């Protein structure tokens, strides 16, 4: 069993996920992250996930692909994925690929949490 590449905590009904690595670039690392988050989704009935990008300096198209897979899996289980704290340079990657239209992206964790709360109230 390899070491976790994530910090995971549960706040209210939301699973907050933080990346340990600053660079989410290589296939093996991305696969490990994707598998770990998929496991979290499988265990929940309607998974609410908030991924915190605060530590992330670089990501690749393979990482975007993993996020899309995670988003699809969360949607299939009537869950919701939100992303927050994305560095402006990385946010530009989302804009260029138009994935800012696919994902729910928030400036801060608080903003994302408020949207989760609004959706459940």
């Amino acid at each position, binding site marked *: 069993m390899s070491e976790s590449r994530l910090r995971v905590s549960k706040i209210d009904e939301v699973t907050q996920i933080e990346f340990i690595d600053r660079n989410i670039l290589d*296939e093996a690392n991305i696969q490990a992250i994707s598998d770990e988050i998929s496991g979290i989704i499988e265990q929940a009935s309607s998974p609410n996930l908030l991924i915190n990008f605060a530590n992330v300096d*670089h990501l690749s198209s*393979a990482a975007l692909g*993993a996020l*899309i897979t995670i988003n*699809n899996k969360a949607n299939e289980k009537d869950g919701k994925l939100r992303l927050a704290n994305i560095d402006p340079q990385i946010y530009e990657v989302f804009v260029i690929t*138009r994935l800012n239209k*696919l994902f729910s992206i928030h400036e801060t964790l608080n903003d994302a949490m408020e949207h989760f709360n609004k959706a459940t109230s």
Partner: protein
Amino acid sequence: MGNQKTRIPHSQTVELLNDRHAINELIERILGLALHAGLKDAAIFAVRLAIEEAITNAFVHGHQDLGSDVPVLVEYKVTLGEIQIAIEDQGPGFIPESLPDPTLIENLSKPFGRGVMLMKAYMTEVLYNAQGNRVTMRYSTP
């Protein structure tokens, strides 16, 4: 064979295996030279992303039917405010124009097919050879 060889003149050439430490070391070496040549933070971000995507494509797609002992060739040349990089795999090549546009609504939720478009978005110039197994990229400070 029959693949035309147009090397970047006066470039450094490295044979690279699909080993993460070796890939990281090479990318850091190239980016170190780029910093010395006056490339700024946004340029370093762009070049790192483009090299990463091109190397990933070379191994994951180009070498998918080849052994792990087959190297990818990387050429690089850094001059004042400019960097040129070529990445050549030993696979059959592909037709870049055949790639679907990943930004179309119907392709947005597909988890693949964004590497080449990111390379083109971030670099000044991205050119493939006729066989499609060698990409030459250039970043010039605006």
